[in-house]
């Protein structure tokens, strides 16, 4: 499952392989899905999610984030519904059971990766 999502994210990258800025972007994109899933334990709509991520130091271009939400939903990881509260109709996204399980798996993988990388980079 992770590969499917990761490949989707990779597809959006127009690679100029080898250039430092592109490698940096690739590195960030690897963490993008996990970052998004982590913020969807509570329902969010596209713009509020982008704000939440930016406030915590993970700014993501809106042109990347909004289509990603759709694809995660199509992959059966998110549930969504339209809501009209104080403003225009907004589509809210939230982790479903499958997404919650995946988030737990990815979090464990990420933590192991961080430990290993820290050891390597010492």
């Amino acid at each position, binding site marked *: 499952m992770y590969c499917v999502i990761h490949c989707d994210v990779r*597809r959006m990258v127009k690679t100029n392989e080898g250039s430092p800025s592109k490698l940096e972007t690739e590195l960030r994109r690897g963490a993008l899905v996990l970052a998004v899933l982590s913020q969807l334990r509570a329902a969010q709509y*596209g*713009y509020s999610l982008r704000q939440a991520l930016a406030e915590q130091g993970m700014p993501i271009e*809106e*042109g990347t984030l*909004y*289509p990603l939400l*759709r694809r995660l939903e199509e992959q059966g990881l998110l549930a969504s519904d339209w809501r009209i509260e104080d403003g225009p*109709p*907004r589509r809210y996204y939230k982790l479903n059971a499958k997404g919650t399980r995946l988030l737990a798996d990815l979090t464990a993988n990420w933590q192991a990766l961080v430990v290993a990388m820290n050891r390597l980079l010492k």
Partner: protein
Amino acid sequence: METQAIIDDYVNKVAAKLPRRLRNDVGVELRTLLTEQLWSAAQEAGRSPDSTLAVDVLRRFGRPDEVAARYAPRGFQLIEPEYAPVFVTVATCCVAIQWGVTLPAVFSSRMTLGDWWLRWGLSAFSWVGFLVLWFGIASWIQRRFPVDPDSGRRPWTHWIFWVPFPGEWRPGEPAATEWRAGLNTAPLGAVLTFFFVAPASILRHLLPAGTDTSWALYDGRFQRWLLAPLIALMALRLVLLAAAALNERRRARTEALRFGLWVGFVAVLYWALLGGRIFAHVLTDTLFKAWLLIFLLVNTIQILVWIRRAAIRVRMPEPLARR
């Protein structure tokens, strides 16, 4: 209102490039999100939203066709990247063979270069189209029915259509997998060998009495000169498979013989294809030869791949080899 018109126009352009089922839903969501984006940008800039700011937000969001591509469901690759080199090789070989076989007619003045180009030169490229379709179907079959990662077995569906790669693979004796695949097809080989001895007579026994089976009669010349060697080669291959099945240790020794039989069989079939009629009946002969041509092309490619694989050996890099 002017800014909303700019956003609406942009959203319509994106929606026009989306699949019908996504168009409305994504369009409404995108309009809301972009409007909020615009208001936020205006707030940050400390002014009211205007057309300049709207255009700026949209430019940052991306070109409509790029945005639509990000929303659209994932497409598929007609030819998987790992098959691309094989595809290029096979397509180049097919075009080169057609040119190589037909060009001598120009040099022997039986045809002008212009006539050759219109009749054979250009039509050689239809092989590329045929192969795109072939590899496309093969790729689809492999995606739909993948090879079992644990056993390495190819599902039976791979045999409906010739799927070039990957073959069955498991660690072990190099030729064992090919032998196993050969053994799987042995019963079919035995039935075909028996059938091709005298198809018309066998059909006469199988079909209701009085059915005309003369369309399955061999051409006299083919029957006299080529049938016996072909049947002998087919039967020998079956004997060899049976021997290999009974005594696994002999597999390596019989490998060269098996390859020789295969090459011999293909060579006799080429002779039959090019040397005249196989069946006495014209329609049977034409249809059989059309199938035979494809069969021979596939087998020729397989033989070339086999030879190439056999020739590839990992060698020590030069500086290490000298030590």
